[in-house]
């Protein structure tokens, strides 16, 4: 009865990919080592429950998506990819926000332009966008802890 056996494996694989505890997690099917396949547009990303981070989602769509959606040549780390974001997230939200606000050159001289090249964004708006990117790239706990520390929950 090979077909039944194969079917059981398929079901088992599906369960393993989406454990019960993760079914209510809006990021469960979003975040992974390589991130979502293809270019990531904002409509593929969930809306965070925290207002501060949700505001960052809107800013991300307007200014950050072009590069951080997966434009490789820009050198911008792709949203949803823990491979790209874990080391950056470990630096903390304050450091990442400072880089995004003031501009930053990475170790291979890939440039993060100040405010993503959008001078109309305030420091807070840039920080909101950073918090959303970290949240959607495996750093949910980091963002939640930072929000609590700063009284922004």
């Amino acid at each position, binding site marked *: 009865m090979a077909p039944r056996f194969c079917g059981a494996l398929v079901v088992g694989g599906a369960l393993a990919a989406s454990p019960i505890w993760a079914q209510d997690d809006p990021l469960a099917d979003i975040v992974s080592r390589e991130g979502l396949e293809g270019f990531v547009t904002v409509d593929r990303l969930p809306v965070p429950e925290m207002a501060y981070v949700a505001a960052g989602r809107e800013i991300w769509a307007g200014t950050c998506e072009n590069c951080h959606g997966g434009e490789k040549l820009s*050198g911008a780390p792709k949203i949803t990819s823990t491979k790209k974001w874990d080391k950056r997230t470990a630096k903390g939200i304050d450091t990442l926000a400072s880089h995004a606000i003031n501009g930053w050159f990475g170790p291979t001289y*890939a440039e993060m332009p100040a405010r993503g090249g959008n001078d109309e964004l305030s420091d807070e708006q840039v920080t909101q966008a950073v918090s959303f990117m970290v949240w959607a790239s495996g750093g949910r706990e980091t963002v939640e802890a930072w929000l609590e520390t700063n009284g922004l929950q």
Partner: protein
Amino acid sequence: MKTLSAKLKTSLAAGTLALGGLVAVPVQADDMEYQQVADLLHLVMASDRTVYTRMVVGRLAAKEKVIKASEHFEDDKALPLPAQMFRFGAEMVSEETDAFSYSLQSLWPINKQNAPKTDLEIEGLEYIAENPGENFYGEEELGGVEYFTAIYPDTGVAAPCVDCHNDHKDSPRDDFELGEVMGGVVIRIPMDS
């Protein structure tokens, strides 16, 4: 006996694989598809251009500010722009072989000579502009020869690129945003008969 194009496919693949250090595809790739050859060619082109943009222009002009990059690099004693470096490479290739060619084109070119000329080029440039992150592939007959044509998005990856196109007196557009598709790399390979 292999045709010129078949030889091209094999030799290009071998050379590109050796340059890129890739191991996923065997070097003995007699059956390599045109699309794969074009993709690998583009990988080398894009990587070299990105390295120049970051390690030379980004480092010396944007970060350390010891020299500028300028469209008029000879008069200004400056670095050539990354797009100019790319075109110089394309010109050198065209002098060496007609087995493949490549160019940088745009629907909004500063230099009108870089506007698309064939229907497929126009279709492809429109497609990549409307579909971020995607490439375009097609076949077209030009002068009695069938070509495989691949078009890859060329985005404004640094602020100076975007600012120059927005501010240039000959640019048809002034509203490019960072990371937006500003044109495309067109690679054309004559196909086997």
